[in-house]
C-alpha cells in the first residue's frame, strides 16, 4: 500500500517535472530572435534582408532560385532544344530564317544565329519549374527570374508571349 502510494506520487512528480522542463524550453524560446520573415513587408527578392529589420537566420532568394521563366528573344537562336527538353510540352516556338549573325554563348563560345523566333510562348500555368529547359540552351536566352507572384484572374495571362509584336490578340491557354 505504502509502496504503490509512493510510486503514484513519484509518477506524478516525474510527470510534472518533465512538463516543467519542456515549458522552460518554450520560455527560453520567447526571448529568441523570431525566425519568421514577414513577407510581403520584407521583400525576399532583395539581397539584404537586414535593411528591412529582419535579424533571423533565413536568407533572401538565392541566385539559383527557380521563379518564372524569362526569355530574351534577341539572343535566342530558335534551336528548339528547350522545347524538346520540356517533359510537359509547355513551350511553343515558331521561327523564321534570318541572315547569319553570331551570338556569345553561355560557355563563352560563339554560336551562329540563322533563325529568329517569331513566336515563343510558355504556359506558366503548366510549367513545373524543373529547369530541364534552361540546361541545354546554348545561349542562355531562357532563364529563371526571381519572380514568383503569379496570381491572376484569367488562365490566358499565364501563357506568356515572349517574342511577339505588341497588339496581337491574346491566345487561349488551351492551344499550347
Amino acid at each position, binding site marked *: 500500500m505504502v509502496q504503490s502510494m509512493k510510486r503514484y506520487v513519484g*509518477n506524478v512528480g*516525474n*510527470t510534472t*517535472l*518533465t*512538463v516543467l*522542463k*519542456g515549458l*522552460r*524550453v*518554450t520560455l527560453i524560446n520567447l526571448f529568441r530572435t523570431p*525566425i519568421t520573415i514577414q513577407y510581403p513587408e520584407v521583400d525576399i527578392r532583395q539581397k539584404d534582408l537586414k535593411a528591412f529589420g529582419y535579424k533571423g*537566420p*533565413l*536568407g533572401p*532568394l*538565392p*541566385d*539559383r*532560385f*527557380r521563379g518564372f521563366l524569362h526569355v530574351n528573344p534577341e539572343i535566342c537562336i530558335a534551336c528548339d532544344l528547350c522545347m524538346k*527538353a520540356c*517533359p510537359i510540352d509547355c513551350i511553343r516556338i515558331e521561327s523564321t530564317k534570318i541572315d547569319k549573325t553570331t551570338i556569345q554563348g553561355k560557355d563563352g563560345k560563339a554560336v551562329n544565329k540563322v533563325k529568329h523566333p517569331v513566336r515563343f510562348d510558355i504556359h506558366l500555368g503548366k510549367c*513545373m*519549374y*524543373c*529547369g*530541364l529547359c534552361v*540546361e541545354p540552351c546554348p545561349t542562355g536566352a531562357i532563364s*529563371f527570374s526571381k519572380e514568383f507572384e503569379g496570381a491572376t484572374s484569367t488562365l490566358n495571362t499565364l501563357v506568356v508571349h515572349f517574342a511577339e509584336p505588341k497588339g496581337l490578340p491574346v491566345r487561349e491557354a488551351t492551344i499550347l
Partner: protein
Amino acid sequence: MQPFELTDLGAGTKEMMLNMGPQHPSTHGVIKFVLRMDGEVVAALDPDVGFLHRSIEKIAEKLSYPDFMPYTDRVDYVAAMNCNFGYARVVEKLMKMEVPKRAEYIRVIVAELNRISSHLVSVGTFGNDIGAVTPFLYAIRDRELINDLLEMLCGARLTYNFVRIGGVAFDLPDTFKEKAIAFLDTLEPKLKEFNTLLSENRIFRERLAGVCVISKEDAVAYGVTGPNLRGSGVDWDLRRDEPYSVYPEVSFEVPVGGGLVGKVGDAFDRYWVRIKEMQESAKIVRQCLEQIPEGPIMAKIPRVLKPPAGDAFDRTEAPRGELGYYLVSDGSSKPQRLKIRTGSFAAVSIIPKIAPGWMIADIVALIGSLDIIAPEIDR
C-alpha cells in the same frame, strides 16, 4: 470496396463502421481507413488507398529517361532528393555508367540533408498527432534551414530535380560548406531541446510505451523497411549492409529500437530510431563535406540516352524505407516499364494486422509512428 459485415454484440448493441479519412489530419495525406468498431476498440481495419494516384509509373513509359526525373520528385515530395537519387542510380546501372566521385559525394550530402528534413517533419507531425502541437513548430523551424540550404544549391525548396543521370545538376556553391556546417552545429543542441520538449516528456512516453508493437517476424514478413523495421529491432540498413555510392567511405552507426520505454517495436521505438538517425545523418554530411574531392560533377553522357535492352533493379535507403526502382528497357529512348517500390506501401499493409484490439486513439499513434505519406503509397 466491400463494407464490413457488422456483428450483433447482444444486449441491443451492434458493431459500428467508421470511416477515418480521406481528409483526416492524422493520415498525412489522402488515405482512408475503414474501421469496424466494437465501442472504442478496433475489431478490424481496412486501408483504402489510391486517392493520390497520379500514374507516375505510366508517365515514365511516355517520357525519355532524363525527362522523367522531375516526376520522381513527386514520388515522395518530403524526401525528393532520395527519390531522384534512386532513379538516377537505376538508369546508370542499366547503362553501366561510371559517376564522378564528386557527384557521388554531393548526392550523399543532399540525400542525408533531405533525410534529416524528412525525419523532422515525421517526428514533428507525430507529436502533433498525439496532441503536442508545439514541437511540430520547432521541427518545421529547423527544417526551414535545410530548405534554405537546398534552395541555395538547386533553386527549389521541395521538388528539387537536382540529381541527373550521370551526375548532379549543379556544383556546390562557394558558401555551401560553411553554411551547412553552421547548420549542423545548431542541429545538435536543437535536437536536444526537442528531446526535452517531447521525447523525455513523461506523458508522451507513457502514451506510446508498448503501443502497437510490431514484432520482428511480422515486420520482416510484411516487407516493412527503413526506420520502421529498425524500430522493431532488426539491424538492417542498406547504406551499411548493401553499400552503394560513397557510403562505404563514411562511418556511421545504425540505430535500432531497443524497447527504451516499453516493448521492442512499439510506437516510441520507431519514433526514437528517427531521432537517432538524424544525428547519424548529420555525422555523414559532416564527413562528406570534409572528404569531398575536386573534379567533374557530370559523367560524359550521350545526348539521347538509349540504354541497351534489358532490365535492372536498384534499391536505396530512403527516409521511409527501401526505395526500389525496377526498370525494363527495350533499347529505345523511353522505358518500357518502370516499377517503383516504396516503403510506405509496405508499411500501410501491416496496419490491418496490428490494429485489431487497439483503441481508435492508438491507431492514430500507429499511423503517425509508421510515417506513411500518401504520395508514396499511390504513386
